[in-house]
C-alpha cells in the first residue's frame, strides 16, 4: 500500500494542474515500513521529453540523481514516481509499462479539463510486461 500525506498530495495535484494539458512528472519521498510506503514529500520534476508533452513524459536522470541525494540527506527514500494523464483515465499505459522500473510505486493522476479527477498506483514487474494495481490512499 502507498499512503500520500496531505501536503505531498497537494503538491502533486498542483504540479499536474499547472502542467495541463501537458504531462507532469515527479518523485515521491518518504519511508517504507511493514510493507506500507508513506510519502511525506512530493518533488515536482521537469518533463525532459523534447517533443509534444501532451502524451509523453521523460524524467531527467541528472535531476533524479539530485532527488536521490536530497532523499538521502533528509533520511528519506525515493518511494515512487508520479505523472499525469491529461484528459484521460489514470491507467498504466503500454508506454508507461515499457519504460517503468520494478523498484518503485507509479502513481498516475488523471486531470480532466484542467482539474484533478482520480488517481491510481501501480507496481510494474521486472520484465516490464505487467503492472499490479497497488492500494492508494492520499491526503492522509
Amino acid at each position, binding site marked *: 500500500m502507498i499512503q500520500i500525506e496531505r501536503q505531498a498530495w497537494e503538491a502533486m495535484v498542483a504540479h499536474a494542474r499547472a502542467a495541463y494539458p501537458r504531462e507532469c512528472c515527479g518523485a515521491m519521498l518518504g519511508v517504507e515500513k511493514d510493507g506500507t510506503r508513506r510519502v511525506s514529500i512530493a518533488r515536482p520534476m521537469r518533463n525532459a521529453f523534447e517533443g509534444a508533452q501532451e502524451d509523453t513524459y521523460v524524467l531527467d*536522470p541528472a535531476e533524479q*540523481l539530485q532527488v536521490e541525494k536530497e532523499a538521502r540527506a533528509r533520511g528519506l527514500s525515493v518511494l515512487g514516481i508520479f505523472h499525469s494523464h491529461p484528459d484521460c483515465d489514470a491507467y498504466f499505459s503500454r*508506454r*508507461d509499462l515499457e519504460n517503468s522500473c520494478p*523498484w518503485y510505486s507509479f502513481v498516475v493522476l488523471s486531470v480532466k479539463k484542467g482539474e484533478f479527477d482520480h488517481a491510481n498506483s501501480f507496481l510494474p514487474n521486472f520484465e516490464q510486461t505487467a503492472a499490479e494495481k497497488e492500494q492508494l490512499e492520499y491526503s492522509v
Partner: protein
Amino acid sequence: MAKILIPTPLRHFVNGQDAVEIAGGTVGECLEKLTTDFGDLRKNLFNDEGKLRSFVNVYLNDEDIRYLDKTATAACDRDTISIVPSIAGGR
C-alpha cells in the same frame, strides 16, 4: 575502493546497507563484484544475458557512464557509483 550507493528498494538485498565499498578497476567490474557478493541483487541490475537492464542508468560521481566509456569506465578509489533507473511513459 569505489563506493556504490544503493537505492532504497534494493537495500534489503545488501543487508540493509545504503552503500557498499567495492574494489574493481572499472564500473562494470564493480557492479559484477557487487552482484556476485550479493547474488539476489543481480536480477535487479542485469538481465538473463548478463547485460544491464534497460531501465538501469549508472553514474560515476555526477557523470552518466553512457557518455564516458560505459561499463569500461575506470573507477578509482573515492569514486561514487550511483544506480538511477531510467523512467518515462505517456498515456
